[in-house]
């Protein structure tokens, strides 16, 4: 079986698995990293949203063989590591996670790791463009939340952006 090597949450890992197995399953079923959730497997629901080299992506749509050994994957478990220690909040978490806690966004929580990962990438992108997050930006988020936590997600993103 082919060996797959990449970096996940700061650690280089090697897994024996076929090239075409999507990264989501490698993370969840083989490495036991269960923060990214399954909601569709076809890059629609965005519950699995994680970061590759700092950008949002969906591991359910990436065959593991397409990763190179230097590709850095960050899942919700490793998100605090994307910011310097002094930027982390009261719980030692990424400012967006702290905003999520303060706003009590979560209901069942299933979609929330993906929501947070998508929110961080959105804010990074908007900041790089030198502007503030607008309602129109929030309207582009595709992550579904069947519990309907959208109102608090919008509030938390504004809050998190101001802390980032």
């Amino acid at each position, binding site marked *: 079986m082919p060996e797959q090597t990449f970096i996940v949450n700061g650690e280089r890992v090697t897994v024996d698995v076929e090239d075409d197995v999507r990264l989501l399953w490698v993370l969840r079923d083989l490495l036991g990293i269960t923060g990214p959730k399954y909601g569709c497997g076809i890059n629609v629901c965005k519950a699995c949203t994680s970061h590759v080299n700092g950008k949002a992506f969906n591991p359910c749509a990436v065959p593991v063989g397409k990763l190179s050994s230097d590709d850095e994957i960050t899942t919700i478990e490793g998100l605090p590591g994307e910011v310097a220690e002094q930027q982390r909040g009261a719980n030692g978490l990424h400012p967006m996670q702290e905003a999520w806690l303060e706003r*009590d966004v979560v209901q069942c929580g299933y979609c929330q790791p993906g929501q947070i990962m998508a929110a961080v990438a959105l804010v990074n992108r908007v900041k790089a463009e030198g502007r503030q997050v607008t309602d129109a930006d929030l309207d582009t988020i595709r992550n579904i939340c069947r519990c309907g936590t959208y109102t608090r997600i919008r509030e938390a993103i504004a809050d998190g952006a101001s802390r980032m």
Partner: protein
Amino acid sequence: MPHPHDAQAHDATPLAVDRRRFVGYVIGGATLVAAADLVLDTPAASAEVPTLPQPAELYDLNDMLTDAARPTANLITVTINEDGTAGFELPRAEVGQGITTSTAMLIAEELDLPVDRVRVTLAPARPELLFNQLTGGSNTTIATYTPIRVAAAVARAALLDAAAIVLGDTVAGLVAKGGVITARDGSSVTYGDLAVKAAGSVGSRAVEVELKSEAEFSVIGTPTNRVDALAAVTGQKEFTTDLAVPDALPTMVCRAPTLNGTPVSVRNQAQVEAMPGVTHVAQVSTGVAVRAATFGQCIDAVRALDVVWKAGPVAGESDATILRKVRAAQLPMPKLPDTPLAQTVSGDFTFWFRSNSPMDTNSAIADVRPDGATIWAGLKSPIVAQQRIAEKLGMSQDKVKVNVVTAGGSFGRRLFFDGALEAAEISQEMGAPVKLMWHRADDARVGRTHPLGTCRVQATVSGTNVLAFNQSLTCVETDFRHGLGEIITAAAADLPAGVGNLGFAETIFALTQEVPYDFGAVTQTLVETDDRFNTGSMRNIYSPDVRVASELVVDRLAAKMKMDPYQFRRKFQRNERLLTVLDTVAQAGEWGRSMPAGTAQGIAIHKEYKGVSACLVEIDTRPATTGRQIRDAVTGPRVTRVTFAIDVGLAINPRGLEAQMQGGINDGIALALTSSLHLRDGHFLEASWDNYFYTRQWNTPPDVRVIVVPSEEKVPGGAGEAGVAATFAAVACAYARATGTMPTQFPINHDQLSFEPKSFVPPVPQSPDNGLELTS
């Protein structure tokens, strides 16, 4: 375990001395275990109900669920641990509605312990609890409010007794705060230190306690963040598919191209068994199961299977044919007068099939061995699940251990145990533990649906009076075979006159529905037909559809009388609490403000589960909004502003209540505007969240305000479903006012198929491989 009733038999103290004095127990354990019985609450509601007002006003579904819990409930226990925390196993399912948080708050309140030191876990199936382990009808808080507090108060009393000895003071001289008990001389001892000392010896002892009065509450009623939020935002919160059960490998099922079709034979079993990662292929009653090292390899195997199928019971049917059957089953409506003096206003509405699929699909872990089985799943009726699984496996019920796992949403679906039952069968067939997960396509197509139905309304107006209001709901049968049915059977004798002898569905209809207006002679009827679908209720049973039909006709009545819709609702309102929430939204939401053409307000009310709510929405139906282009999406009219007021009775956690309303608002919008299932040629087409259009960020209102109205009521009401009906109705009314046309089917976009259906053979889509090109 010692039986508490023995202790009680020696104790002459009546169970409930007054509203706040109750008897609980300290029972034997390594550390302090305090217990209470649900029998301790007030006597059952009177069964004598006059014909008017409607049954639901005097005795509703929640009274029935609470009464059903009373005589059968055994002990619920609060344990004090040596680390100073309190532990409690909640005999209910947490599915996102926040009951672990509200339960922790009740315990923290009576124990004088911080909320974050209360650990609430979910109890496995406890058959001795009979009817008291069903999570439904927004009943959890209503039924458990008093007993949980009694158990916690008993624990506190035992801790104080033990502290008095340790500190050499009297109980009266002690102060308990934050998990520490301090004596008059300043010496102190923690709950953790007392956990063993306060433990009961052999046997149990009855303890009479007085619960805190409302004036003393410092936790109940205070907005509190969820106890599981930290775990959720860090990815540590575990759902069924996250559990690491040894050897329980990923498992999926290949399903038939028609709904509930069944497998006849597999043409290429050996070939699929040889695929990478695959360990087992097994034909079961619902399809062909595959077990593999990863779910990705399960998907490959499911797609590769070549199966001969027997068509399902609705093969060839479509929305149109089912609707025709439902219409054929409708009861004739009474002929009402239509003269210049007494005019009849009517409406006839269709509600299409809707999916109650949550984010976390049907999933379950099963480890079935020859001598017993263990199951893990998100289950709202674990005892019934345990019974059915035992039957299926040919085992006695005590051989099946059923663990309840926190679930990623329910919306009615987890009252059933389709995944758990299927996983058990597969594990037995394969002789290996399985972690079964339904593909999203299966969850949407084969998972349960809220039944299609029609709702007809007729009302007669004479001058400024409404003389009669008739409403008749006809729908595809709702499945209640998850335990609610047994409760009704058992409770039948105690139900109000005229209700007890009805069928399950009619009983629930009678116990939940009412027309909350002074409309003269009111009748509401229900007819169900066609039991071939996989049904269940979705975030409320009949109310959303019934309320939408009523409120649209209410707007018509107002127009007929040339009255403003809000003023009309005030005029015919007989309930003070409803008037308050109605006035609250009208004021806060600026009812009547001038709005551009193509936009409008809509207002509606709802009453259920001891609570009342009102909703005022603003909608934008102008072309610039409806014409928004977003790939693979439904845009359409947008609700731009929502003002929602609720009086739920005592709100244990106002922040959680607000969250539930916000969620319900998004459900109401989806039901009105975007989300339905389409049946074509014997199967539902929807296989993705880009097919089934639940509210998304581009649909959700940018401006949402939920107002929790201070309540005169002293007891809590249900919250999980309360947000949907009034919102759904207000959106429908706003849409009618903005466009000048009253919609007659829901969702309004049902006639237009907004996606390209995915294949039925194979039944699940392959995962894309271009994810690295789509980073953002």
